C-alpha cells in the first residue's frame, strides 16, 4: 500500500469505524458486529490498493454487502428485535410515554424487498442522507427516494399502529 493510500484508509478508518460499527450492530447484533466491521475495513484496505477512493458512503456500501452475505445473522437480529418489541414491559412506565415499539413493524420490515429495506435502513439506522445512501448503493438518488417511499408505504400499511411519537420520548431524539 502506498503511503498516500495507507493514510487515506487510516483516516477513513479512524473517522468512520464507530458509525460503521453502530450500523452493523443494529443490522446484525452485537455478536457479529465486530467481525463484520473488521471485514468491511479489510475489504477497504484491499480495494484502496486497487485504486478505490474510500469514503463514508462507500464503506456503508461495503457494509451492505457484508450484511447481505450474513443473511442468517440479519434474520436472527430482526427476529430478536421483533420479540423484544413485543416483550417490553410497560407497567412501570407512565401512561403518556409511548416507546413506539411494535413487533408488527419489524415483522413487516423483515418482509420488505431487500433493496427497499436496505435503502430505508441506510437512512434511518445508518443515519445517511439520501445522496449518501445512493452512493452507498451505487444507484441514482431518485431510486433511493422511490425505494424509501415504497418501503414506508408498505410498512405503514402492514403496521397500522405506528403513529408519530411524542417529542418528549427519548427514543424520538434525532441522532
Amino acid at each position, binding site marked *: 500500500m502506498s503511503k498516500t493510500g495507507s493514510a487515506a484508509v487510516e483516516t477513513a478508518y479512524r473517522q468512520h469505524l464507530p458509525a460503521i460499527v453502530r450500523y452493523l450492530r443494529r443490522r446484525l447484533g452485537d455478536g457479529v*458486529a465486530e467481525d463484520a466491521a473488521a471485514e468491511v475495513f479489510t475489504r477497504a484496505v484491499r480495494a484502496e490498493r486497487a485504486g478505490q477512493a474510500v469514503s463514508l458512503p462507500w464503506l456503508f456500501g461495503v457494509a451492505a454487502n457484508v450484511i447481505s452475505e450474513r443473511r442468517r445473522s440479519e434474520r436472527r437480529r430482526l427476529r430478536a428485535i421483533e420479540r423484544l418489541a413485543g416483550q417490553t414491559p410497560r407497567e412501570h412506565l407512565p401512561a403518556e410515554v409511548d416507546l413506539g415499539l411494535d413487533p408488527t413493524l419489524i415483522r413487516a420490515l423483515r418482509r420488505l424487498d431487500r433493496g427497499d429495506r436496505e435503502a430505508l435502513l441506510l437512512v434511518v439506522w445508518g443515519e445517511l442522507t439520501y445522496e449518501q445512501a445512493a452512493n452507498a448503493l451505487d444507484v441514482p438518488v431518485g431510486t433511493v427516494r422511490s425505494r424509501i417511499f415504497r418501503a414506508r408505504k408498505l410498512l405503514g400499511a402492514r403496521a397500522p399502529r405506528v403513529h408519530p411519537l411524542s417529542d418528549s420520548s427519548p427514543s424520538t431524539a434525532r441522532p
Partner: protein
Amino acid sequence: MSTPHDDPIDSALRAHADLGLDLDGEPAIVEAASRRVAGTRSGSPRVARRFTTVIVGAAVTVSVAGAAAAATGLWSPSLGDDHRGHPTVATSDVPEEQLQRFEVLRRPADDTDRDAITQRALRELDTSFQGVRTQRIRAVHGGPAGRRYLIVPVERTESGVEDALCLYTVDEEGGGVSCWSTQQILHGEAVLDALAANRDARPRSASDPQSLRPTTAGAVAIGLVPDGVETVVSSTGERAEVHENAYELTTKAPGRTLVAWLDSHGREVPQG
C-alpha cells in the same frame, strides 16, 4: 444535500434500532474491530509473509524420484531447521468441518504430496507454526502453469489462528505463506498475493516443469475456496479455474483483488 424528513415510520424504526444491544458495548466493539483491522494491515495471519531464502532453485536439484516418500502410513518429514527452529507436530487431526468443506483434505495423500520438493519446503517453516498436521499436507497445482502450492494444516499459528489452513507457495526469491481459519476461508478472505508478476514467462528449463514463475505481466493471486467453487472471477473480470480447493488468478489489477465464486453452473456461490 437532502436529509430524510422525520417520517413516523422512520421514527418508529429508530425506536427499535438499539433493542437488545449492550448500551455500553459500542466502544469495546470498536476497539476490538480496530485491533483486528490493525493486525490485518500490519502482518496478520491473512497477510502473506515472505521467506527470505531461495528454496526452489535448490529444490529442483534434489532427485524427486529418489526422495519420493511413501504416501501411505504415518509420515514424519523434517519441519524447520536448527536455524529457524522446529515447528511442533500436531497431536490432532483437522476438524471435521474442514474435512467436510475441503475435498483436498479428504483425498488420500499421494507421492507428490510428500516428495522432495515438499520436504524441502517444509524445512523452511519456523516455530510460528504450531502443531503441523503432517498427514494432511497436500501439494496442489493451482493454475494452468502447473505451479505447486502446499496446503499445510496447523493446530494454531503464532498470531492466534486456531485450526488454520496455510497456503504455502514458493518461488525463486523464497516464497510466501498465509494462514486462515475455516471461517475466514468461507468468507472469501483466503487470498494470497504472493507473486509479483512482471518477470519472464519462460519456464526455466524443460526439467523444471513446476517453475513458479508467473506467466504474464500483472499480479498473481492465489487462494483457497471451499468445495463447490469451480471458478473465481476477479473484480476486474479475470477468471481462474479452481483445482483442489485452490486457484491461481493472474490479474492486471494492482494490489489485492476481490474475487467472486462461481459453481459448476456459473452461479455465484455466496461467501460467508
